[in-house]
């Protein structure tokens, strides 16, 4: 178990390094050099050269990549070309917002999705079951952008139930949550459907499994069978999906953060790329990928905990 976890984490780190390196090279390929982006129109060749040198952009690519990785290790993500502040600080402002959003979304998705799914599975083919089936598919189909914009249009701009924009970070927990409701739903709603369906499917499968029949044969109470034997196995795929899903959710988060003007990695990313503020965009992707990798790693390890066979099949 420990070995597996270590291995899994090692892999995660390796992937992160690869991801960052390839991205660094990609960004460097952008038209117009960061030096002039940094200096803006004022860039005289002399000044440019100075900056280029300062940023080590004149070095061969492998060296650059290596240096960047090293400095990342030291927690130095470079300097925001626009605001002249350390990128790390900028990330410190934005990452928590995004994590809040993702966390809340996953929560929404899981708290609604898993019960719906299990009930649908237990009441298989009932009207409820069919309704849930149709509903989940529909919500999966609707892109987060649209949900966000309409949510904005109706609940914020229209009814004014919830704040239109921002994260309310300066006004304590309540306002934070208040600002979180709409975005979290916009990101999470599709996943409610996903998870409901997934749990239903695997639940049905598990409930027909031999060992469940055996548990019944030993006269165990249904509730114990469902929670202790069935659900436990049935949620395993859900965890994996959420792990991977974090990536997709982050995509939705970009739109949601834009539409609701929430500070966050997505929004930060968007601005940075737009201004070719490459240390920031790098930092942002680093953060995003980091989150994603951590998520998948955790989900794998969790899976291994829930169902040890996963260790063999899992990779």
């Amino acid at each position: 178990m420990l070995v597996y976890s270590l291995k899994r984490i090692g892999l995660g780190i390796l992937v992160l390094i690869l991801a960052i390196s390839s991205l660094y090279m990609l960004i460097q390929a952008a038209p117009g050099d960061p030096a002039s982006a940094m200096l803006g129109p004022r860039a005289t060749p002399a000044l440019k050269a100075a900056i280029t040198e300062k940023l080590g952009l004149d070095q061969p690519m492998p060296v650059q990549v290596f240096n960047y990785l090293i400095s990342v290790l030291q927690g130095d993500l470079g300097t925001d070309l626009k605001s002249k502040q350390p990128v790390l600080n900028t990330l410190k402002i934005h990452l928590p917002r995004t994590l809040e959003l993702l966390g809340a979304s996953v929560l929404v998705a899981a708290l609604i999705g898993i019960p719906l799914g299990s009930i649908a599975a237990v009441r298989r083919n009932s009207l409820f079951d069919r309704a849930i089936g149709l509903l989940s598919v529909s919500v999966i189909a609707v892109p987060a952008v649209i949900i966000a914009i309409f949510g904005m249009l109706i609940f914020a701009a229209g009814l004014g139930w919830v704040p239109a924009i921002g994260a309310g970070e300066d006004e304590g927990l309540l306002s934070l949550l208040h600002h979180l409701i709409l975005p979290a739903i916009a990101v999470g709603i599709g996943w409610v459907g996903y998870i409901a369906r997934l749990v239903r499917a695997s639940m049905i499968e598990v409930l027909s499994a031999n060992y469940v029949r055996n548990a019944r044969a030993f006269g165990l109470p249904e509730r114990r069978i469902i929670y202790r034997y069935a659900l436990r196995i049935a949620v395993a795929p859900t965890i994996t999906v959420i792990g991977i899903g974090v990536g997709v959710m982050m995509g939705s988060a970009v739109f949601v953060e834009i539409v609701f003007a929430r500070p966050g990695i997505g929004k930060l990313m968007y601005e940075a790329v737009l201004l070719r503020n490459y240390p920031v965009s790098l930092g942002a992707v680093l953060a995003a990928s980091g989150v994603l990798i951590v998520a998948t790693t955790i989900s794998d390890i969790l899976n291994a905990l829930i169902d040890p066979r996963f260790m063999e099949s899992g990779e």
Partner: protein
Amino acid sequence: MFHSKIGKLSKSYQRAARTVAVASCVWATGLVGASAETLRIAVPSDPGYLDPAYWGSTVDQFLIDNLYPRLAKYAPGDEWTIELDAAKSVDLSDPQHIKFELKPGIMWTGGYGELTAEDVEFSLERHLDPDLESGVVTEFELLEDVEVTGTYTGIIHLSEPSTTFWTSTLVYTSGAIISKKAAEEAGGYFEATPVATTGPYKLGTFEPGNKLVLELNPDWTGEPVDFDQIVLLPIGDENAAELAFAAGEIDYTRSSAGNYDTLVANPPEGAVVKLAQTIDPLFLGISQTNEKLSDIKVRRAIQLALDIPTVIQATTSGYGKQATGFVAEGLVGHRDGEALTRDLDKARDLLAEAGAEGLTVRLDYVNNTERDTAAQIMQANLAEAGITLELNGQDEGTFWSLDEIRAADLQLHLKAWTGNPDGYYTMQYFVEDQIGYWNWEGYASDDYVALLHEARITVDDTARGEIYKKMQAMLEDSGSFVFVSQEPTVILHRDTLEPGILPDGRPVFHAFRKVK
């Protein structure tokens, strides 16, 4: 001049991306329910450089104008009028030697003592120091030296008599005075963190991308202000700013004139909606240095093929007026009623003559709502004349950064600069050695240079105005310039306050008043 462009740059920057824009509202939210003493203003972006030698964006300009003293400043109001600031008196009788006397008792923040003539000397002469690489050095070409005749008195000596130095430099942003002591302590070079300032407000907390807070300056002895805190919230896009305003997140913002009608028809609660004419020229540059466009016939054809009134109609709902040149209406040197008119047939003929049928050119512009709208219309216009226009909406950084490669590759570029009441300010940049820097059109003419020189030393406004008209005509006839408009802008503020703004809507912080 580039700073102006940069100024404009950041103006466009403000529209850069809806995201940047809306995104910026964020801090706004942060401040919902903040004390009534707080004034929340939407600005296009974060400040970059707060050193008068390097200022770039509109926000840099706001802050430098508001934080640093100058001998005199343009006053808030509907007219462009100059009022004394740090100076008790200025003697302009001799346009080559400007005498001034400072008000005593203006204290620098951070305990850097009193504002003296030495500070003025230092502040102006440092631009001439090559090591400083001042971004605005061109504006100081005429400056010989500043002679300090007493603690508060001094004389500014120019190599030639000039009125433009006063109107477009000393009282304008670049004329800002900083504390010699403080600057020298900072090694003469400081970027985003201003050394000592004066005035009712001083810089408070700064969270990039989130907010910048100005707080009361305890050392301020001048007349009191109504707001004890000013929060600048970076919102790039007017539509976003509008949204933030409607959501009650900000108290003052500019917005797109295109939205004026809807704003009037359905104004956000407790909003006052005004329309302001800026003096910021929006124009289309056509690079004659590019071989596709080297033939003047082709350039003229493009000029004639464009339907500028429609562009203005679309982007400003008709509140904009087609520009006749760089100088805005009502200012010295404005050309009346000589705007380009569309003539498709002539355009086609010219193309035929030049044998340039089926021409394909690229239009660079900053990718934002208004520019995009304009660009798409131009695309349609030129299509009718048989010219294919590739739209190349770029992000702020890419558009304004001009490395050698791109300089060589410039074709058509739609851009706006921040204007100055004196047209000289803008036009001084279309000279040969600015090619590859700010003269993207690649325009070069000795006659023009001659006129430029003449204008600089012409003291009489009407006479100077005539020269400006000639210059603008030359620029237009070169086929490299299509003057679109002096962009109008919508001003949006709470009815609980009376904004203090320059005629073009740029805020003068200390002049904001609460409505009693």
